[in-house]
């Protein structure tokens, strides 16, 4: 069960090697979390991540999960929930893709969309149903500011996150009153292996800062969290910039 500050005792990370996911898990383990499930494609990286969290004192298990294979989601995730209540699900998987390459290779662009959007829709609905049966729990969805307004440099990724964001907001409204809390987290540019080699954007942040914002959001039972918080004002301004001008902005 979550405590008075919204800190979960059990956590399921979808995308078990996600840096933000693991930073969040570390932070929550330092507070109350004892049981962690890392869901991801079986790989040495997933096992390393699990070992790292075990070293912090948590009981960590891995489960084979592939966002691109939604047919298996119900069965794989169902097993996790059958083992006991999950207080928080962190939907952390996603790929950035390579915009230039993906524009040339539509199939590769589709993979980005399938991972970030349709995979998340399927996993999100499966988890939402299980949480609803429990009558409690938080579903934390990692969206992105890239989904707030499509940009020339990453609109394939951005459009997939826009879909995910809208889905998660709607799901949050659908689950209102069921005891399940859905929180949409919109980080800006996060310095991580996903963005390695890319130049820093303004207001760049770190996985640890996102984890801190998630902890605060859980305490406040927030529905939307921007990281850093200033992005909320920046993006609401950018959202209203006319297209001809927006195209010329160095964003």
């Amino acid at each position: 069960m979550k405590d008075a500050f919204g800190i979960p005792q059990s956590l399921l990370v979808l995308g078990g090697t996600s840096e933000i996911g693991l930073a969040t898990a570390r932070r929550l383990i330092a507070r109350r979390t004892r049981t962690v499930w890392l869901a991801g494609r079986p790989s040495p990286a997933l096992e390393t991540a699990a070992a790292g969290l075990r070293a912090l004192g948590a009981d960590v298990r891995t489960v084979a999960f592939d966002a691109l294979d939604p047919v298996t989601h119900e069965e794989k995730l169902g097993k996790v929930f059958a083992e006991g209540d999950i207080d928080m699900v962190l939907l952390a998987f996603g790929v950035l893709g390579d915009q230039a390459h993906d524009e040339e290779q539509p199939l590769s662009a589709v993979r980005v969309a399938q991972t970030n959007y349709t995979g998340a829709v399927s996993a999100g609905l499966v988890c939402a149903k299980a949480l609803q049966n429990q009558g409690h729990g938080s579903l934390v969805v990692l969206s992105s500011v890239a989904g707030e307004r499509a940009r020339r440099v990453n609109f394939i990724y951005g459009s997939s996150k826009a879909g995910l964001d809208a889905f998660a907001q709607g799901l949050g409204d659908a689950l209102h009153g069921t005891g399940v809390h859905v929180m949409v987290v919109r980080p800006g540019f996060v310095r991580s292996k996903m963005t390695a080699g890319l130049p820093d954007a303004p207001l760049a942040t770190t996985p640890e800062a996102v984890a801190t914002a998630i902890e605060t959001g859980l305490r406040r039972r927030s529905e939307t969290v921007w990281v850093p918080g200033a992005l909320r004002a920046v993006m609401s301004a950018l959202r209203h910039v006319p297209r001809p001008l927006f195209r010329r902005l160095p964003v």
Partner: protein
Amino acid sequence: MPVDTASVEVTGWGRTAPTTAARLVRPRSYEEAADAVLDCAAPGARGGIARGLGRAYGDAAQNAGGCVLDMTGLDRIRTIDARDGVVVCDAGVSLHRLMEVLLPLGWFVPVTPGTRYVTVGGAIGADIHGKNHHVSGSFSRHVVSLDLLTADGEVRTVPAGTDLFDATAGGMGLTGVILSATVRLLPVETSWMSVDTERAADLDDLMDRLAATDHRYRYSVAWIDLLARGPAMGRSVLTRGEHAPSDALGARARREPLAFRPGRLPAAPGFVPEGLLGRASVGLFNALWYRRAPRARTGELQKLSAFFHPLDGVPHWNRVYGRGGFVQYQFVVGYGQEEALRRIVGRISRRGCPSFLAVLKRFGDGDPGWLSFPVPGWTLALDVPAGLPGLGAFLDGLDEEVVAAGGRVYLAKDSRLRPDLLAAMYPRLADFRALRAELDPRGVFTSDLSRRLSL
């Protein structure tokens, strides 16, 4: 038919950690209660827990995804023995109702907490204490026997002094549903209190005064200003009292010495901005409250309700903390651990926890309930807005101090304890778990509290 509502969001009085019960059932008879419990035991159901008036601060009377039994429908006072002072009543009867009925007959409840809006079942389940603990012990010490609906759907009469009684007193509703109880009462001549008030300049002064003269009073408590720092740290107002004898009343009050007419102010508004109760506002309130109190005054006559339940005058007072709710933290450390108490008060004062409802009191002998909270020693209760940054880790630090001093925190107020500390705080926890495993092997009685702490 029991009133049956699907999907109801439930919280404790602190309004933190809301969860949704799949069903809220309000039984009106033993039979309906037994049917509801058997439903809770169905495969796939997530158990059930009894709930009274929802005054437990944390998640004791919540059951996410399961069934919550609203016991306020079982509200009959069955018999009153006005000669010997014994009442038999349903578990859903509130202490408020008992006072309304019993005071005109010259009887008072043996123990009352800071609110009279608790049910008799809840009073036993949390084994509540009051300002008279050093004299009278906890509530269940005055319970002769109770009727308990267990997981098999049977109703058992449980007399005091048995293992099942001691597991149920303070057992947070996890041994079964209390249906009714036989309670011994306290004779009173009037519904007035004769109150002595004095100020203590700091924590040491307070402890000296309490230790020296507590035994002279039936009721004793100290309000403490936890925001005062430096030499004023722990400054407090002691209020101690007795039931006033009829010859102490003035001519007007003597016409109706046993009248019980508690006043009521308007309810707290539904929306209060977060952070209204910050360090500045609470600091100001505390300073004024301290200075307003007389340095020493004896024999002041106060209404029962003003002395025992000042906050009951403001319905929904818990809303003043805003949407984020608040956390109550109450611990006890034994006599001889005054140094630990000083350290904890010092930490709270330095941290600047904006608490305006902090009280310190001395407990008397411990109570027989296995999970009953009181042990002989000092108990401090404080309230803090849950939104205070870093509060979780801060209270974890206090837990460490409490455990190191051999103390414990109160489960009826808890919403955040680290589960692995529980066994050190409650040495009879293993017995409690063993009895539950035998009596309710499938865990029909389950609450968010029991899940969180693996009770």
